[in-house]
């Protein structure tokens, strides 16, 4: 395949600005060049058909009828050399440690607030702060068992943390399926020295869930899903199947007056010890949170607080991945660990602070504005690309609800050669590694590289035209 590629004015993952391949990509470039374009195209079609037939799909909302789509998969893998990965790994472990300490603090002594590092107001006004968790000790003191942290690279190739997803991060099934598809389609691309495996993720997850079981012995573990119409239902099933766990919906569970959780089976009720829940706090227990919720289990919080069932992630972790709280994570790392953050944040303005509000209002057309509590690329303004009306609309919204927004200068995400209609072309990418916490914190080597398939687009979310790539962490540096 002819590689005629322009890195443009961006940091490119594969190529130096002078057009030579980075050393850890050299072998891939060589193997790719030897492939015919036709072969490559055929493989791509075969992989897409396989995904569709296997039902590896997600649901897009918004239309009257929600539609099932495959998550587009790009066959050019992203490669991370071993030393670069250890840097990321260290940074992510540090961050996860601090976030967990923060959550414990915020729901107990609130020292970080008393010491004036994080303002009380931020916590109290956070939509995801849960009064019900105050004073409660979750099993083994762990709040975030599974985290998906989004990383981007700036102009110089430095890794920055864009956001932490400490509630119900999704996408891990694509990480595993992408690797599987890649091995089938292009075995010849894999380096002789190998690529670090991601396939044992479900096993690690299973151990982490077993670790927090309230009773000794084999625990009954279940994945709690909102159901087949949820966009990530495929993933919920995938994980349950791979772990040998039950997949349950709210209607399958009851909390009896003994404050234990049971599932309804054909031979009666069976006790459940651990729930890997993929339902947000708001919907998890209509007795405590959203009263209208049909997805949750009445009494679940009661059972949780009594210590009869463990939940992963804990309730109330949303206060840590709130986009406003995000701004304070570097301070948390300093405060709790007395360390400098290994992975910096993206420069962020908080309209909540008066000086920042003024700056944001005056420069909105040059900023990216995000709703503090939304995910999936919803509720977002990309100033430079927005119309005057859109900017005005956000200006008013930010003015009225300063706590609900943050603003960042647009970061030109790094690009990666991606196979499109005109051959290889640069597309913006980010990286979501998955972190699991049990007896210690482990980072899955690799993660989900998301790619904005539309030319020039910076939005990598699957709901908005994003795709994904297999992500290889090498065993060495080349």
């Amino acid at each position: 395949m002819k590689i005629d590629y322009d890195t443009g004015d961006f940091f490119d993952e594969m190529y130096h600005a002078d057009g030579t391949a980075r050393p850890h990509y050299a072998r891939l470039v060589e193997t790719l060049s030897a492939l015919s374009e036709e072969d490559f195209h055929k493989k791509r079609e075969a992989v897409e058909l396989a995904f569709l037939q296997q039902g590896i799909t997600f649901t897009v909302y918004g239309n009257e009828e929600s539609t099932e789509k495959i998550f587009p998969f790009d066959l050019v893998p992203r490669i991370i050399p071993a030393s670069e990965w250890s840097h990321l790994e260290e940074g992510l472990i540090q961050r996860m440690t601090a976030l967990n300490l923060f959550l414990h603090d915020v729901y107990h002594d609130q020292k970080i607030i008393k010491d004036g590092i994080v303002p009380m107001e931020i916590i109290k006004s956070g939509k995801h702060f849960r009064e019900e968790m105050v004073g409660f000790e979750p099993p083994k003191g762990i709040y975030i068992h599974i985290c998906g942290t989004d990383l981007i690279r700036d102009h110089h190739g430095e890794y920055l943390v864009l956001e932490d997803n400490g509630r119900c991060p999704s996408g891990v099934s694509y990480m595993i399926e992408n690797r599987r598809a890649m091995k089938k389609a292009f075995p010849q691309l894999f380096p002789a020295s190998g690529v670090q495996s991601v396939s044992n993720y479900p096993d690690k997850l299973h151990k982490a869930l077993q670790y927090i079981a309230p009773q000794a012995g084999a625990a009954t573990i279940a994945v709690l899903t909102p159901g087949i119409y949820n966009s990530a239902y495929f993933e919920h099933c995938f994980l349950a199947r791979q772990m040998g766990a039950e997949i349950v919906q709210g209607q399958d569970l009851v909390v009896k007056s003994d404050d234990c959780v049971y599932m309804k089976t054909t031979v009666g009720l069976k006790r459940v010890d651990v729930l890997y829940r993929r339902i947000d706090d708001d919907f998890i227990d209509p007795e405590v949170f959203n009263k209208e919720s049909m997805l949750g289990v009445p009494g679940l919080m009661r059972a949780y607080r009594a210590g009869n069932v463990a939940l992963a992630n804990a309730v109330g972790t949303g206060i840590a991945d709130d986009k406003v709280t995000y701004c304070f994570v570097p301070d948390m790392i300093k405060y709790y660990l007395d360390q400098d953050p290994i992975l910096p944040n993206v420069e962020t303005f908080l309209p909540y602070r008066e000086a920042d509000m003024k700056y944001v209002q005056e420069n909105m057309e040059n900023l990216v504005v995000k709703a503090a509590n939304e995910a999936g690329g919803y509720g977002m303004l990309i100033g430079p690309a927005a119309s005057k009306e859109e900017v005005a609309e956000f200006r008013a919204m930010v003015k009225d609800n300063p706590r609900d927004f943050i603003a960042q200068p647009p970061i030109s995400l790094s690009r990666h050669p991606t196979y499109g209609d005109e051959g290889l072309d640069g597309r913006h990418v980010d990286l979501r590694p998955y972190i699991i916490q049990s007896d210690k914190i482990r980072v899955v080597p690799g993660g989900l590289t998301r790619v904005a398939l539309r030319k020039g687009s910076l939005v990598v979310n699957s709901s908005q035209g994003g795709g994904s790539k297999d992500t290889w962490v090498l065993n060495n540096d080349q």
Partner: protein
Amino acid sequence: MLCRVADSLFWMSRYIERAENTVRLVDVMHQTILESEHSNEDVGYAHWEPILLTLGDRDAYDAIYPKRSSFNVSEFLTFNEKNPSSVFSCIKSARENARTVRDQISTEMWETLNKLYLFIKRADSQMICSESDFEFFARIKEFAHLFRGILESTFPQDLGYEFVVCGREIERAAKTCQILDTKRFMSSSTSEPDDAIDAVQFAAMLRSCTGFEAFHHEHGSDLDTIPVRQFLLLSQKFPRSALFCIRRLQVAMHAISNCPITLFSNEPERLTGRLVSKLNYALAVDVEGENGDRLIDDIETELENIAIAFSRQYMQAEIYDPAVEATQKQSQG
């Protein structure tokens, strides 16, 4: 096993069976019409009406289509999304149920069902309904056979399997009865008995149940009401006869409860056992004329009762009732 999982397996299986049976009915009807007078859509519709009446769908049809035509009925039974029993709707529902238990069934089962869904979703409904595309119907039947084959060779034969069998056999027995019913509606539409037409109709019915050849093995070429009814209701060997299906259902039910087949441990087992006996000891006279009509009605009603009792026994979400728990506590205290 979760009640909901049992329910989904049961219905997945039932919907696939229903889709396949409807395809058979439609396919056979298309073929039969070719040899009958079908000069215009009205006459064509007259051939279809007995099927609509048997399936109890004529009102639903009239609510959707202003005009009674052969094309419309074919569309209604095969593709229409508003008809919950159309082949498309059944396949969609089967897939939806399979998706709910995606973690319980084998990858091969899911993929076959998903392929079937994609196949019918992409089919050219206009062409198929106007030109009777046998290829299309054959493919769907093949998918259904394939699915059952895959089920037999990839699905662990424990509890879940028995729920699948129960769904399939209840549906199959009910459909065989409905197919026999079509003859009743056909007879009522013509006043005078005509042996030649009767023979064609009986042959069509047997073909709808894939029983044409098997019938001739058991009964020779005696295409008449009593032998056909005996065959489709009481055959000990033919896999789609009502008795055969209900016996198979009984075996599956007792495998779920582990209760010996000569006894019963719950209501659906009792109802099923009673129905098996009734058919097991039936004579030719019991399928003759009005006796036979009544027997067919009884089987259909009993199958419905069995399905309800079965669902109540294993799949109802009401297994736990907090009010009952509270009263028990009080009475103990």
